[in-house]
């Protein structure tokens, strides 16, 4: 047969119980939590990627400098198509991973390294692709490229410094 606890016993029992930890609020991952440079970089990089995609979709191969041979031009045209797919995929992953706060640190590093690879390839190997294009849009994109390189690199650095810690 169960005995009922007296009030004093009940109070002692409740005091002895460890406090239940309150449920932590799920942290929201908003752009406004970051620095002004991060916010600017985020918006700039997304805008630049969207502008490049729009330029490729609307103008296509007209962006390229086509004075070379047909074979060389085909090569560059294929390269532009691959870049279009890559940029689109990275842009989608970038925003989704930021929004859902899943793997954004990795995605930011991958995006930054892709942007640098493309820049270095263009600088050393494919300087004819955009730099010598007669298209004014291509020229604008080339002029604005260094800001994008800085932006995306800064996003990767600030996010990793803020959120990623070693287990050790």
């Amino acid at each position, binding site marked *: 047969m169960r005995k009922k606890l007296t009030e004093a016993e009940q109070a002692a029992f409740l005091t002895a119980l460890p406090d239940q930890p309150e449920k932590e609020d799920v942290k929201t991952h908003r752009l406004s939590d970051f620095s002004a440079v991060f916010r600017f970089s985020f918006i700039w990089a997304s805008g630049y990627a969207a502008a490049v995609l729009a330029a490729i979709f609307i103008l296509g191969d007209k962006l390229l400098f086509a004075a070379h041979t047909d074979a060389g031009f085909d090569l560059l045209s294929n390269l532009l198509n691959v870049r279009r797919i890559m940029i689109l995929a990275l842009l989608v992953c970038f925003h989704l991973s930021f929004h859902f706060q899943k793997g954004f640190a990795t995605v930011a590093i991958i995006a930054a390294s892709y942007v640098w*690879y493309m820049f270095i*390839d263009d600088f050393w*190997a494919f300087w004819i692709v955009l730099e010598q294009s007669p298209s004014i849009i291509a020229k604008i994109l080339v002029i604005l490229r260094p800001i994008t390189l800085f932006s995306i690199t800064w996003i990767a650095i600030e996010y990793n410094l803020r*959120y990623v810690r*070693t287990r050790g």
Partner: protein
Amino acid sequence: MHEKLTDAERVAFENAISVPPSPPVPPQHRLNNYSRLFQASVIFGSAYAVYVMLAGVFWGDNILNIASDGNASPILSYLWNTRLVFIFCLLIGFHLSFKYHRGFGVVVIIVASHAWYRFTSDLWVFPLILENSTSLTAKIRVFLRPLFLFSATWVAIEYHLVQFRTRD
């Protein structure tokens, strides 16, 4: 005048003093701290990179397939040289950052994304560079490439799972 403590007092005094915690021993960062698959991946990935570099240094443009179009070869040659510089820098960065345990998490993502970037470029844009080459060295390289991609990706994944967590 100092009073001498009795034995009992001394014992009580020594017990009362908390033992200062010994400074934590920094964890050793060795290859054998990781799984067999990680070890094999690091060794294979490094050997593959060295092999590609040696092939590039000794055979140079002979590895490239220039039979299809002579005019495209300068672009491919520039691209090939760019890759050699990249591979060399990444190999050095990979081993130094692993040895000194500084920034290896970032370097390994850069290495893996570089490997995938080159692979997608070759698959869609430059299939003629190596896949159609008459060189046996190039064929071996192409044959082993999927293993390298797996290795680089696995090293990045395992290292991040073992070493990193998000701050919250």
